[in-house]
């Protein structure tokens, strides 16, 4: 089961991020991790939350443009060289990463990275063949 990411379109202006976060707070949605990709006039806020479908629903109700994307959550050792090793797997198999970001929370002595691929299934297969632990939605957000 892939991890569900909520992506939100926000203009690069004061107050816009705040209003999105308020809608999520009011709906009792917990943000587990997030990242923002910014350009000069807009940004894309990418969130992993405990209730992604609900988050998308309340945002849409407030006329905020958002979408739901499957991303891959990968567990790696929290030590030097382990991210490089994972990425090396992708480059050897010519899997292009659209974007990635790190999980803020640590799981024991392991770190979690989030990856967005064009072809998520190919990426999963590659990682499984190399013995990586792909984290399921249930493990990550408890649903």
């Amino acid at each position: 089961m892939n991890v569900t990411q909520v992506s939100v379109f926000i203009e690069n202006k004061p107050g816009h991020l705040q209003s999105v976060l308020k809608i999520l707070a009011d709906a009792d949605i917990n943000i587990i991790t997030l990242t923002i990709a910014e350009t000069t006039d807009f940004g894309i806020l990418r969130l992993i939350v405990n209730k992604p479908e609900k988050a998308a629903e309340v945002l849409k109700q407030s006329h905020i443009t958002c979408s739901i994307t499957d991303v891959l959550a990968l567990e790696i050792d929290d030590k030097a060289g382990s991210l490089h090793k994972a990425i090396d797997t992708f480059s050897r198999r010519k899997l292009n990463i659209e974007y990635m970001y790190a999980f803020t929370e640590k799981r024991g002595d392991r770190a979690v990275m989030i990856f967005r691929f064009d072809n998520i299934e190919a990426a999963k297969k590659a990682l499984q063949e190399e013995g990586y632990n792909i984290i399921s939605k249930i493990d990550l957000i408890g649903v």
Partner: protein
Amino acid sequence: MKELQYERLKWSLTHAYNNNKHYHDKFEQAGFHPDNFKSLADMKHVPFLNKQEMRNNYPFGLFAMPLDKVVRVHSSSGTTGNATVVGYTKNDVEVFAEVVARCLGCYGVTEKDVIQVAYGYGLFTGGLGLHYGSEKIGALTVPISGGNTERQLMLIKDFGTTVLACTPSYALNVADYIEKKKPDYDIRKTKLRIGVFGAEPWSQAMRSEIESRLGIDAYDIYGLSEVIGPGVSAECEAKSGLHVFEDHFYVEIIDPDTGEILPEGEQGEIVYTSLTKEAFPTIRYRSRDITRLYHDNCKCGRTLVKMEKVTGRSDDMLIIRGVNVFPSQIETVLMEAEGTEPHYQIIVDRKGSLDDIEVMVEVSEKLFSDEVKVLDNLKKHITDRFRSALGISAKVTLVEPMTIARSEGKAQRVIDKRKI
């Protein structure tokens, strides 16, 4: 011609007065009675009809024939409030086909031609209008409708299409498509020779671009669904001005501010009166199109009055660094890019001595992507299309939905800060 027009006008005014309540009431209110219509000079006493009245009478309030005599309706898209519905009797359909066939005749089209009708079929008058006109002239008619450029190109080749009828912006789109996706497709090696372009204003610059890129002669076909649809006037081989089919449509030029009739040759708003239409008489309809009427010794031999190619509106035209831009053209570009009706706003400002145009586009769910590059490409694509289709460099800004203020459901499309 003047005699024929007078006779037909008298009939048309009487018909509208007797058979339509709205016309009856407004003639009464203006103190005009068709019996007092003694000469063409009396036209000034006939009240104008505006777009809002048409909307207020949605759907059939301006019909002057019972519905069982009406055989077809067309309708405007209704993007600016209520749609306008127009009706046709059997005879009206016949007249519609006749005037479109005459337009095609003006371009040198004959029964030997193969006409690909790439206007949208449906409520829009373009598709069916061209279709019936093309059949009337006896040409082989290909009802392909709009879009699907790949297939359009295939049929041009396989059917030996000689005439392409579509909007001028779509013609440019076809040229772009060939350039980008089918570099081996040589349009000059096909039999395509004539383009019939209308439904939106286009400039001489656009004509040159289309003609050189597609290797055809591009002609303007003009019309409004409120009057009949395409076929009100057409360019001829001279490509200078459009001959108005005056035996079916009476035209006047007025001062848009005072409503006063201007003498021949002066520029103003063109006003239409239908002379033969039964189901939907159009009496002194204010088109908002700005043009000029004149007679010249046209080399094609036609003596019909000519109108200049319409490039202006008395309402929403913008001139950006000398280029005429209509919000509708911007809308067309956005519609092509998005595939849906866009929410947008045009902001015009003057920076130093130069005009600056910014187009804000609301990012709908359909457009949105979690990847920056997809949104950046969309911006770039729209910017490129503005440059190639409208000849303007506009800054495109993606904004959140509902950012653009809507009043009574309709967004204010243009903010011109230059006037301040």
